């Protein structure tokens, strides 16, 4: 039948058998015998295919004639933008994130500045206005082909340096004439008084306030320097914004850092029901695994609850659960299926000769600048990592370092070439940074979990499609009364 080993991955759902064709970047539904045959082929079993009937053989022949089941692999791991990196670095910068200060009035246990991380430490160091101005000039001079400029203020707690922020805003508004300019800030919310909020509103700041959940959970991690909880202060400020700046309030976002050792159900109930936060856009992330040996292992009940909420979100996708019951912590899974699977599954003729696994961000469109004017690809990477320091506001970009960060596939070139999840890999340089270099060993250790995530997403995606989910329009395509799952009928 097929002489070669096709570059595919087979998987099944409760309702069907599938293969993902890496070259064609497509998922195809197949019969069980064809699935069994392809699976045996991938496992290198001898004499596979003897059970195939005429129809199955014709299916395989047809697929091959249409360019599926090829064994082609990329011949060189290289990021497509390598050849025009100069262009990107000179013209396509769009966001500058300024490390306003390394100081904070909070001492959160999971903070990247805390003792749990090798990233950085809290200190009194803050950015000078001269450095900030040079950074803003750099942004303007390297963004001629970007249509919008973003300037973000990051800390520590940026609002500790309100005068500095005002200087930067005034300068940026003057020199960025002709382009849409967006300011943003991630704040712990404790310093948001009326005067500050009025200023932020006047200058169209997008703000993200950190709030982890109800008082007991929030206060367990997020404390003032004097060890007192910060919840009351933050929630009162949010209440004030809601009452006095209702229009501005509707545009703010909350970021919840989720500690998997906490009770997700009570966090979920808080964000779904509390009058001060239930209508606010909620972003959530988990405690960072980068640059720490203190890996957080959560409770089983946390994962059980989360899986159930994701299940409800999936049911809502096929009109089997009212959206009002869907947890904001589960929507991200649907978002992932839509944006990272559905929209990326665009049929191609073949893998290119030169390609790079998905994962590394561009490292040039957004830039984090620390108090010293050193450049990093984002605020989450380590400031003490030489590998991550990709330039300086005075000396400009270090192109060689950028190329290294956006070509991490070269660390594990042979493994990447053979990996069926090549196109959907999400490993970025920060996840393999050892502070002194990028580690192939560290990268390989993460491959299994990447493949499991992608396979799980393929299975969820195909299951939802079997039940009639339409990822283009968000509507259910067909009658789903025969679907075996149902909730809240």
């Amino acid at each position, binding site marked *: 039948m097929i002489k070669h080993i096709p570059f595919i991955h087979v998987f099944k759902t409760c309702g069907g058998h599938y293969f993902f064709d890496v070259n064609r970047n497509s998922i195809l539904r197949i019969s069980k015998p064809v699935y069994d045959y392809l699976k045996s082929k991938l496992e290198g079993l001898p004499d596979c295919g003897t059970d195939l009937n005429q129809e199955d053989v014709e299916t395989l022949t047809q697929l091959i004639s249409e360019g599926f089941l090829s064994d082609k692999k990329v011949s060189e791991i290289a990021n497509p*933008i390598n*050849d*025009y990196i*100069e*262009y*990107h670095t000179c*013209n*396509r910068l769009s966001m500058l994130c300024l490390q306003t200060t390394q100081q904070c009035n909070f001492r959160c246990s999971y903070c990247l500045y805390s003792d749990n991380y090798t990233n950085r430490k809290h200190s009194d160091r803050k950015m000078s206005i001269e450095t900030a101005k040079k950074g803003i000039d750099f942004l*303007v*001079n*390297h*963004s*001629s*082909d970007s*249509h919008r*400029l973003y300037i973000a203020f990051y800390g520590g707690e940026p609002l500790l340096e309100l005068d500095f922020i005002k200087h930067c805003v005034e300068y940026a508004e003057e*020199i*960025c*004439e*002709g*382009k*849409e*300019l967006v300011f943003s800030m991630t704040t712990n919310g404790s310093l948001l008084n009326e005067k500050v909020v009025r200023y932020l509103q006047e200058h169209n700041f997008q703000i993200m306030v950190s709030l982890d959940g109800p008082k007991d959970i929030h206060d367990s991690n997020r404390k003032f320097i004097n060890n007192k909880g910060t919840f009351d202060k933050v929630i009162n400020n949010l209440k004030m914004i809601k009452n006095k700046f209702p229009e501005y309030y509707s545009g703010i976002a909350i970021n919840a850092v989720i500690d998997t050792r906490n009770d997700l159900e009570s966090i979920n109930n808080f964000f779904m029901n509390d009058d001060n936060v239930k209508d606010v856009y909620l972003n959530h992330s988990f405690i960072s695994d980068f640059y720490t040996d203190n890996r957080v292992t959560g409770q089983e009940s946390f994962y059980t609850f989360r899986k159930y909420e994701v299940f409800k979100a999936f049911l809502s996708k096929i009109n089997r659960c009212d959206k009002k019951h869907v947890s904001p912590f589960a929507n991200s899974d649907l978002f992932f299926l839509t944006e990272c699977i559905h*929209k990326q599954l*665009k049929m191609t003729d073949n893998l290119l000769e030169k390609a790079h696994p998905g994962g590394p961000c561009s490292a040039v469109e957004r830039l984090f600048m620390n108090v010293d004017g050193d450049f990093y690809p984002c605020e989450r990477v380590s400031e003490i990592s030489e590998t991550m320091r990709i330039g300086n506001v005075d000396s400009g970009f270090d192109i060689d370092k950028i190329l290294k960060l956006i070509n991490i596939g070269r660390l594990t070139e042979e493994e990447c070439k053979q990996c069926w999840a090549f196109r959907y890999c999400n490993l970025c340089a920060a996840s393999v940074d050892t502070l002194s270099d990028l580690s192939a060993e560290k990268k390989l250790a993460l491959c299994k979990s990447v493949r499991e995530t992608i396979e799980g997403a393929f299975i969820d995606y195909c299951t939802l499609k079997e039940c009639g989910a339409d990822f*283009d329009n968000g509507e259910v395509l067909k009658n789903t009364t025969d679907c075996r799952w149902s909730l809240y009928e």
Partner: protein
Amino acid sequence: MNNKERLMIYPYDIQSAPLITHQSLIKNYNITALVSPNGWGLNEKDAAFVYGGRPLGIHIQSDFEGCLDFCDTVLFAEHDQATDVKKVILPKIKKAAKQQKNILCSLCPNNEIKEEISQLCSSSNVHFKHFDYGKEVFYVDKLESITRTLCSFETPVVFVMGASDKTHKFEIQLALRDNFINMGYKVSQIGSRNGCEIFGFHSFPWFMRSTSINEIDRIILFNHYVKQIELRENPDIIIIGIPGGISPFSNELHNNFGVHAFQISQAVKPDAVIFSLLYADFSPDYFQSLSNKINHKFGYEINCFNLSNNLFDMNASVFEKRFMYAKLDTGLVDNKTEYYRKLQIPVYNILNSQDSNNISRHIFDILSSYGNRELA
């Protein structure tokens, strides 16, 4: 004696770059300043930076007021950057008019803003010209006054079309004009954009963009429009630039479905066609295959290709919900065109001055070869 007015172009970017590369075609103006808003990141950069060409030795500035002193007229030009006309452009127009500078405008402000500019210029006693997609010189007054039959043409017609915008189609149109005029031919021309009158030819006509005229009438009108140009101007060659592309790139980026290319191709049959591509790593047989596809879709083959230095950036385009390109050094294109040099359908790089002449020469040879055979 030089009676030309001194012209400032504002806001200068890739859209207005052909004005500087083909200054010789502009009869009434000397370009003395290229000014862009500071936020565009072009201050003190060479004028060629905006399209990735070889340096011209002319620098872009951001001091609008300072440059006003050294010009008689300001052209407020169409531009690629999304800019708030009311907030950024209008105050500059007012400033220029108050300082007694004539105003040319190829932007398309709404009627309210246009009226405001007009009144301001009138009260400041300065000249205001708005290029409005050739509305002033439309030879066909009424659809009802023309027959529904399509006219044929005695004059050779050249199409300049492309895969999308940003393929240097306008640069090709100007190079053809320049070279054919220098060869002693009389050229009539319809450009693929607005504001072509400054070069002495017709802008893409307004009715092709009108939503109140149906597709069939647009095709008939365009045919008669070109016929009127042929009759009134008695040219040796007609060059038509086709805006946009020929087909969608994706579900999100539909490239206007190549509607203009289709309608113009129904209205006029070309004698020679230049097709400009975005930069990519094309296999040599791609060009013939594309020519065949265009033949099936529009009814004519491609006589030569141009490879632009703009690389389509799908990820950025989907994110920005507009076409985004990476602008490459034109030397990379030269390497490619060298590789394609021996193909049956030649591939050129319009940003290379030698190729700019070669394209015109190739089209000239194609058209001349038709002279050897004649229909009875």
